């Protein structure tokens, strides 16, 4: 065996487990025969699935095949949506394996590989996937210097790269809510990428370094409650950090909706009414829903907003369909990302809903761009923005 793929014997053995049942591509219950895996949507063969990629990995490891255009095409379709991991009865590390194939592909001369290599380099150098400067990370605060490294805070806000540099409306809305409730929060100007994009590219070693930095940074603040707006960041903190660092985190991590739903339950947060009545449809982010199991919290928050009617996608909760924004797909395969986002948008009737709500800055960005490109009139907003609006 030429060990064309750098996995250990244990991981290689895990590839044998695939029974080729194909369930990794489908939804559950009422969507059990609906294909949800974005990779599978692009190809009919079994190889276009997580199970297929496990067989591909096996063949790479055994030196039976080489990296190729088709192999690259398949692997660079994975949006890390997690349908496979939540449906498969036997394997639980599909994304780990897919990441490791990507890690090998990255060194090859494919346009996607170059784009992904740039992201990886960017994160290593600038500690964010966009190549932005570290000092710009807190620009979204619009000069509120007192919350940076605030020693008098009860909440540590881990902003995340997408919110900090791109979807600034999201952190701004969340902090508006905190201000309204007089909750003191701290933002650290030394914050670095959570490491998710590196992990999904097969660089667990590099991701671990970021994890070490972020955990040390929060530990030094002494704050025990960490809130993240981005479900991927929250998931990486909760699920992978303890694994990578081989220890429990010395603080609790919450996604913003989880945290705010807690405040509503305590009676501290009482969302008000929107100025103008609205009807919103809620899109479950893959990493928030399937990844963290947070389905009710964002819905409960939306329910609590006056003047807001809500609607559900047919494909929702565990069966939510990816927006196309995960797995760095918007950067490495933007056409496919848009295609996936359009498919999600096509499930909405603009005549009946005016707002597409999500609780993920990355979904917000992807769906917003797609909606604009398609000249759809629907507003795309984070749940926090809707709450902040209701408090205004």
């Amino acid at each position: 065996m030429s060990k064309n793929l750098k996995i250990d014997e244990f991981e290689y053995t895990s590839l044998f487990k695939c029974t080729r049942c194909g369930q990794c591509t489908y939804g559950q219950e009422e969507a059990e025969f609906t294909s949800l895996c974005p990779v599978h949507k692009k190809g009919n063969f079994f190889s276009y699935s997580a199970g297929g990629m496990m067989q591909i990995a096996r063949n790479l490891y055994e030196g039976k095949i080489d990296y190729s255009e088709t192999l690259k095409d398949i692997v660079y379709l994975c949006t890390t949506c997690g349908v496979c991991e939540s449906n498969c009865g036997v394997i639980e590390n599909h994304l780990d394996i897919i990441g490791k194939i990507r890690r090998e592909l990255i060194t090859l001369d494919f346009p996607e590989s170059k784009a992904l290599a740039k992201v990886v380099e960017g994160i290593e150098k600038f500690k964010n996937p966009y190549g932005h400067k570290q000092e710009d990370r807190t620009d979204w605060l619009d000069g509120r210097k007192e919350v940076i490294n605030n020693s008098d805070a009860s909440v540590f806000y881990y902003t995340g790269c997408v919110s900090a540099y791109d979807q600034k409306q999201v952190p701004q809305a969340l902090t508006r809510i905190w201000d309204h409730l007089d909750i003191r929060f701290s933002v650290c100007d030394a914050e670095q990428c959570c490491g998710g994009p590196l992990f999904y590219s097969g660089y667990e070693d590099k991701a671990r370094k970021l994890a070490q930095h972020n955990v040390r940074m929060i530990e030094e603040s002494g704050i025990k409650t960490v809130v993240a707006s981005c479900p991927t960041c929250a998931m990486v903190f909760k699920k992978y950090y303890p694994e990578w660092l081989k220890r429990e985190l010395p603080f609790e991590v919450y996604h913003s909706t989880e945290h705010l739903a807690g405040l509503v339950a305590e009676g501290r947060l009482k969302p008000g009414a929107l100025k103008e009545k609205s009807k919103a449809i809620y899109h479950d982010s893959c990493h928030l829903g399937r990844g963290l199991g947070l389905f009710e919290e964002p819905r409960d928050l939306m329910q609590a907003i006056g003047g807001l009617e809500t609607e559900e996608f047919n494909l929702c909760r565990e069966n939510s369909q990816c927006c196309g924004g995960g797995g760095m797909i918007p950067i490495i395969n933007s056409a496919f990302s848009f295609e996936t986002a359009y498919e999600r948008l096509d499930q909405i009737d603009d005549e009946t809903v005016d707002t597409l709500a999500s609780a993920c800055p990355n979904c917000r960005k992807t769906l917003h761009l797609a909606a604009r490109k398609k000249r759809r009139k629907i507003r795309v907003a984070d749940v926090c923005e809707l709450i902040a609006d209701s408090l205004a």
Partner: protein
Amino acid sequence: MNELKRALFSVFPSDRVSDDPAILAGYSADSATLPGSATAPSYVVLPKTTDEIVHLVQIAHRSRIPLVPMSRGSNIAGMSVSVQGGIVVDCRMMNHILEINTESGYALIEPGVTLHQLSSALQKKRFFCHLPTATGGSSALANYMMRPSGNFSARWDPDPLLSLEVVTPGQGVVRTGSACFENVGWRARYQCLPDLTGLFANSFGTLGVVSKGSVKIFDRGETDKVLLVSFDEFSQAAEYMKLIVRRQLAESVTFWSWGWNLFHEMTLSKETRIPEAMLKEDQKSPPPGVPFGIASARLSGYEDVVQVQEERCIRIANELGGEHLDDQKAREIHPGCYNYLNGYFGKGVHIKPGEESQIRAGLHLSGCLVTVQPENVAKLEAYMWDLARREFEPPYFFRALPYSHAREFFFAFVVYVQGSLEERRDYLTHIKGIYHQLYTDLRNKFGAVMFRFRKYPEFLSYTGGYGDLLKDIKKSVDPHNIMNPGMLIF
């Protein structure tokens, strides 16, 4: 482009035929394939219609290239992995339930229809189908063509197949059962002519590609009940199963030795490590508090009748030394097992089986599967334990269930293989060697016949005129032996 490739690409669009190594890799192995032994086919094709299969079979026949039918590929025994190049015919896109006829009691399905898909559709109509403890993603038709081992096969007659449509290289499209007559339909296994459905059952893709088929479906009745009884001896359990089936008390019943039941616990918890207890030297005696085995019976029908059935089953169990596990007790000692057996036996829809846990734990499975007459099943069990103590490493377990009104029992003895790649390869080769001899011994000593074909080239030679006739038929339907030759039947 060679002629074969040109021919294939002229019939199938490029998203349904491929010779790309990355695509073929997906078809190169299943969970039985040994480390380092993945073998890809030369092409894979995804037909959507019978006509397309006809073209494909003609091309392969002309080119004398092997054709390996595959419905979902989940047989975990390498039966739809092409070992000699050739073309894999992946039927997953033929996944339509064409008809559910509750009046005549059959469903007409394509080979890509999964067990989960069929059982869910039937549940809506309060019907059910035969269910193996296979993964829900397995094809119903492919499973039934291999004589399923599992639920619902005891009181009802055990063979779920009715009529088939098969595309053969030598004879073109053949319809069997009542479907051989135009306008008669799909309701029956055979009419006034010999049974040809049976010819294709257990043929493992060596005689043709099945493009659709009708299967039996059953009314669920007013109520369902799962009755669990624990036994300390296999012989008691075997007698119990025989009696409750023969006396029309249970629709089906299966006995699982304690190891399987612990695997069911793993299904609930999503645990990936094998429980310590399963690695103990003495596999015959369970850990404290765990019964040696549990017989799970499915009772169904009118409510009052089921009540009587339950009382009678418990009485028979008690007389034989078994202990009825009521819901509370079953939940206490085996919560995962209780959940699983209730879901699987009770609801009549497919749920994740214990076997998935075994595979999740990273174990290779190696099974010795046979069918045997009732009076020999307990003797066979004793013999296997003896052999196992000498030859196998723990964990190993068995399960047994009566078939066909308890005329015979299905008996599965399964060894789990773990360790390094080298150790696995060596141990699996060792086991294979033992089984090879064992099947001959078991046949001679206990009249036990190998269940599912396990790739023994000389097997047909034991069957006298039957084998000769089969070979003649094979010549007629597949003159160039292109159909799944890797199965080594012919």
